[in-house]
Structure formats: C-alpha cells, structure tokens
C-alpha cells in the first residue's frame, strides 16, 4: 500500500504543473505579506497596547448593550474577548499592536482556499487523467484490487493537501519572519468555560489551519468522487471550484429562510463558526457539523468506490 501511494506521489511530483501550483502559492503568500507591510508602513505610530485593548473592550461592551439581535452565543463570544483583554491588562500579557511573524501566519490562513484549489485540481485529475492517458488499462491489470488502487489515490490526494497546507504555513512563517521580524507573542489567550487560559500559539495556529481546511478537504473529496464516477477532470474541477466560491454564500441565503439549510454541506464546512459564536442556523453544534460532514464524506466515498470497482474499462 505504501508503494502504491509512493507511485501516486511520484506521478504528482513529476509533472511541471505541480511546481507551478507551489510557485503560485508562495507568490501569493509573498504578495499578501507585501501588501500587509505596505499597509502598515502608512499607519501612524501605534499607540501602546494597553490603550488599544481598553478601546477594544469599550467597543465590545457597546455592542453587547446595543445589539438587540445578537445571539446568546455571540454575546458569550464577545464577553470572552473582553475577559481575555482584561486578563492581558491584569497579567501584563501584551497584545500585538502590529503584524508579527505569528500573526501573519494566522492571516495567511486566508490563503488556504488557494492551497485547497490546488488540492482540488489534483483530486479531480488523479483518476480521470489515467483514463485520458489510457494508462488506466495497465494500472488495473496488476494483481491489486481496484479498491486498493482507488484508496492509494485518495491517500495521495490527502497527503498532497496536507503538503500544500504545510507549504503555506511554513512559507507564511518564513516571509513573516523576514518582513515583520521573528517576534510576536508565543502565547495565545483563549476563553474556555468561563476562564481565560494560556495556550501555545503554535498549537492554536495549527488548529486554525485544520479547522479552516475542512471545506477544501470536503470539496477535494467531492472532486475525487466526480473524477472517479464521471472520468472527467474538467467536470470535477468545474463543479468543485464553482461550489468552493459560491457554495457558502448560497447556503447563507438559504439559511435565512429555511432551517434545513443546516444539513447542507457548506453550512457545516466552516468549523470556526463555533469559536466566534456566529453559527449559521441557531442550535448547530460542533458535533452536529462533524456528523453532517462525515455523512457527506461517506456518501462521496461510497459513490467513488462502488462505481470505480464495478466499471468496465473500455477507454
């Protein structure tokens, strides 16, 4: 099995297109960093952090008092932010007043959908290309079950996705360190169960990256399924990218009127919504979303594996 995945990995990395993807991702992180730096250089000298934190808290409290339509979760979230800021003042844990290496890594997570885009492109091609190249015939006459072959392909897609995300993470850290200096707070303050706790910044960033990647992983799985079922990489890329860019917005529109929107894939891909208390449909929980995602995942995989294993190869 390891050797099958190795085969797929080689096939991905022996194509120039893959390096273009990595290059674009690095370029994008660089451009993003450049803009951030430029933006910051125009700002006036920052005030000291205590003043900023106090101003923030005043704004939050105003929001809580005046915002009538705030959900209970949202209120709790804002309260949490206030608590964190109070903790900062009390224990003298300075907040970042400008971009630092670590805060840039967090900002870099905005580029995750691009890393995801490339993952989708690989997922969309990994089965369909074998048909286009005609190599599927030589691949499927090996003494290896089709299930194993398809599994190795999916594993390669997931590994490639993780690889792209790591590239983004590391490149953001590197560019961040060069442009903003390797300083920054190594401690992340979280508000959990009514208490402010100190967390490792690195672990926090890891969590942000993973939670934010949920949607691209699901879309890559869908692209993989379409690729295996319809043997067309363009169809797989088309549908998946279309959904990647408009799926969330459409789901939000539906969610305004209908409660069943919470069962839609895109209502659940944003796992960070449970952190900031802004859930799409009242009553959704982290566990609920995970269950829905698992449901979609199983359906996608069943479709992919059943059709791939049963199909007559006539290409």
């Amino acid at each position, binding site marked *: 099995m390891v050797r*099958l995945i190795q*085969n797929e990995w*080689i*096939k991905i990395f*022996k194509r120039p297109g893959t390096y273009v993807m990595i290059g674009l991702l690095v370029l994008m992180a660089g451009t993003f960093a450049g803009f951030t730096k430029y933006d910051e250089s125009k700002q006036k000298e920052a005030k000291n952090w205590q003043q900023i934190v106090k101003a923030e808290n005043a704004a939050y409290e105003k929001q809580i008092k005046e915002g009538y339509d705030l959900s209970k979760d949202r209120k709790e979230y804002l309260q949490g932010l206030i608590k964190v800021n109070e903790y900062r003042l009390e224990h003298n844990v300075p907040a970042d007043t400008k971009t630092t290496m670590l805060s840039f890594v967090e900002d870099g997570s905005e580029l995750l959908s691009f890393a995801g885009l490339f993952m989708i492109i690989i997922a969309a091609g990994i089965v369909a290309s074998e048909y286009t190249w005609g*190599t599927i*015939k030589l691949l499927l*006459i090996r003494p290896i079950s089709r299930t194993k072959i398809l599994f190795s392909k999916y594993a390669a897609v997931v590994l490639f996705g993780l690889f792209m995300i790591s590239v983004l993470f590391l490149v953001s850290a590197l560019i961040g360190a060069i442009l903003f200096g390797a300083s920054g707070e190594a401690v992340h303050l979280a508000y959990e169960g009514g208490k402010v706790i100190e967390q490792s910044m690195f672990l926090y960033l890891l969590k942000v990256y993973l939670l934010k990647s949920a949607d691209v992983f699901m879309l890559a799985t869908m692209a993989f399924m379409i690729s295996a079922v319809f043997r067309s990489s363009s169809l797989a890329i088309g549908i998946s990218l279309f959904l990647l860019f408009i799926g969330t917005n459409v789901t939000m529109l539906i969610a305004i009127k209908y409660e069943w929107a919470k069962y839609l894939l895109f209502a659940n891909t944003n796992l960070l919504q449970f952190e900031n208390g802004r859930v799409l449909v009242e009553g959704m929980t982290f566990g609920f979303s995970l269950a829905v995602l698992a449901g979609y995942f199983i359906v996608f995989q069943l479709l992919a594996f059943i059709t791939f294993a049963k199909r007559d190869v*006539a290409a």
Partner: protein
Amino acid sequence: MTALVELKNVTKVIKGKKIIDSLSFTIQKGEVFGFLGPNGAGKTTTIRMIVGLMKLTEGDIVICGHSIQKDFEKAVSQIGAIVENPEMYKFLSGYENLQQYARMQKGITKARIDDVIKLVGLSERIHDKVKTYSLGMRQRLGIAQSLLHDPKILILDEPTNGLDPAGIKEIRQYIRDLAEKEGMAVIVSSHLLSEMEMICDRIGIIQKGRLINVQSVHDWEEDDREAYSIEVNDSETAAKQMAAAFPKTRVKIAGGRLSIEAEKEQIPAVISLLASKNIKIYEVKQLSKTLEERFLEITEKQEAVS
C-alpha cells in the same frame, strides 16, 4: 499439455446487445494463439475480459486454475499484457514507468528491470522521457512492462504495430522464443494476417462475438487447392469452354483474365483444352492464396450458412 487459459461459455452483454456469445476455448502452455477477426468482432472485448478490465455477463475465465471473477489477484498475477496501444506515463522516463509497475507486484528486483530493458533493446534510451519515444520504442517498453513479473501468460494486442521490419522480425522471433523456450502461453491479436501466420501455432477466428473457427496454422498450409490466373485473347469463350469441361472448378473473369481455382495436376489439362479450342494463351500464373483470402473465405462461408 496443460491449459493455462480456459474460457468457458464467456458471454458479454452490453446495453442489451450480445457482444460476445458463449465463447469457449483453451490456450496451452508453450503455444502462440492468434486471435483474428474483423473490426468490431469482439477481439478486444474478449482480451479485456481475460485481463479483468471488463466483467463477464456469463461464463468464466480460468487462468492457471484461478477464476478471474472469484480470484482476480491470483489469476491476473500470471498475466502480462498490452491492451491496445501501450500507453505509458509520458512525463516519466521509460525506467520510471517500469518502476511504477515494479512497485505494484512483489519480488521484482532492480536486476530484473535491467534484464527486461536489455531484452527489448531499450538500454540506451531508457532514461529519456517517454514523450520523446517513437511508437516502436513505446511498443518495446510496453512489452518490457508486460514481462516484468515473469508471467506465464502473455497477451499482446497488435504487438508489431509501429515497428520497422527489423523490429517486427525481432519481436516475432522473441515471441516464438518465449513460447518455445520459456513455455509461455501467448495470445496475439493482429490485423496483419500474414504476420499471424508467421507467429502463431493456432488461429481462432471470431466474428460477431462468436468463435467460428479454430485451426492450426499447419492445417491451413496443407490446403493444396491454389488459384491460377490465365491471360488469354478471348476470356469469354475460354470461360465457357472451361465451365463445360471442368464443371467442378470455379472460374471467374477478372480484368480480362481468367481466374480459376484448381489443383496443380489439373493445369496441363486446362492448357491443352484451351489450346485445342484455338484460344491463345499468353501467360499462366500461380496465385498463392494468402492467409487473408483464406480468412475471408472462412468468414464468408460462415455468413452464407448462418
């Protein structure tokens, strides 16, 4: 002799249409079996079913005692094949392609890969990308790929396609060697019928999804009726005279020449008959019947019967 491949009433229905209709035959150890048939007769479909690319609707295919349906992995591990064109990963080198396939089966050493490369004569270019290869080189690489795991059965679709005459001769010799020295069973399909005659021990003719004839090439060659072409001044009269004198002989007029099918011993009688009727004879030529003609004969006859 042991049967390495056995097809038992293999039937394939695609969208309600019977593509293959209860095909049964066996292929022995050390035998080269030619698969012959017009386009669309079901050759490739049959080959695809043998290698497990297509499922059977009915019947079974047994390879070295393992059913392709129930025991796919064991059955197919004895087969090396090229199905249609030898399509390879063009962005990889020939060597990297072979490595891909080597990783998918146990016990293929680096030495084995090198041996196979030497065998098909690709040593010089093996580290070049496949996209720079000619069709002949891809064909060789395809054969290398099919031999990597030392299979007992080799299936080659159009093996000499795109090769130059020297290459064809080499591959032909090579296939014969594999069957005779290594005892492999080889299944070859080709549209070059003369090619088949030189490589194969037995030829199976398939038409409209049914096996209509299996003959050993040796038998075919023993057919002693030959075709002769006679150039005369008046072919019409000559044809009439022939028909009267030799009612059993088939006579045709083609391009002002007389075309007859007869045994060699009959020819002097034909000549003296025509001469006695004052027909001028310019030339008598023996047309060696090609495998192609014999093939068409068999398929046409079959159509007339059915």
